[in-house]
């Protein structure tokens, strides 16, 4: 396990690269979904299913 985490001595570069990617893409996904469902729910309260 330690061998895997060390990444041949380059763990200090490899893991932050993956970490920032997960944070960036995961965060964007969560924020996008939250805004989407919020807008959809508010619109549904008006009694419409599909906006035009």
């Amino acid at each position, binding site marked *: 396990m330690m061998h895997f985490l060390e990444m041949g001595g380059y763990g200090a570069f490899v893991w932050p690269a993956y970490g920032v990617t997960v944070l960036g*893409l995961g965060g964007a996904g969560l924020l996008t979904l939250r*805004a989407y469902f919020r807008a959809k729910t508010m619109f549904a309260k*008006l009694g419409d299913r599909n*906006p035009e």
Partner: protein
Amino acid sequence: MFGLANPKRFMDASAPVVPWIGSLAAILIAIGCYMALAVVPPERLQGDTVRIMYVHVPAAWVSMSAYGVMALASLVALVNRHPLADIAAREAAPLGALFTALALITGSLWGKPTWGTYWVWDARLTSFLLLLFLYLGYIALWNAIEDEVRAARAAAVLAIVGAVNLPIIVFSVEWWNTLHQGESILRRGGPSIAPVFLWPLFIMAAGYTLLFVTLWILRIRTAIFTRALRIRLSAGAAS
């Protein structure tokens, strides 16, 4: 294609597609990450730093494609005045900026162990930083002008003019002497990378592309819901 530029048709067509594209994106990225971190062997010269390629290169590809999409949608908005084109261009920008920032950060983390520095002002890195500024300028322009029609027009012009940076990014490694390596995948004579390294890269690139498309469609749908909500609320307040 232009048939989908009708908001109602777009909403009807995109609703059933989004969960499938999103799920496929998640699966491809999960498989790509597993292969990149656990299956791909250390590269002969770069060692394990080669694993950064799998989060850096797809981010760079998507960030440039997103700008191309944004510029194209802006052109359609200016010329054909399709109601969805402005929204499509505007909603691509924050995602493009995110992928560009990720490409710059991961590239700099790859640069330190391979070049000995996090940053160098060579043509590829500088033109890529300019891409981030173009995205930020585009977003700022939308927010700075209150009249939505004028804002859309000004932002569209910026997006189209800024597209000249795309070929500069692509060919910068050929036109100038750069620290950044030359093209090793999309090059004449085929890729110079061994298939064992190449397949996970294509899987990640497909996953990143589908993730961008998913988030982009969701953002467009959110914008349409929000606009319709605003119109109906203001109509209700007026009556």
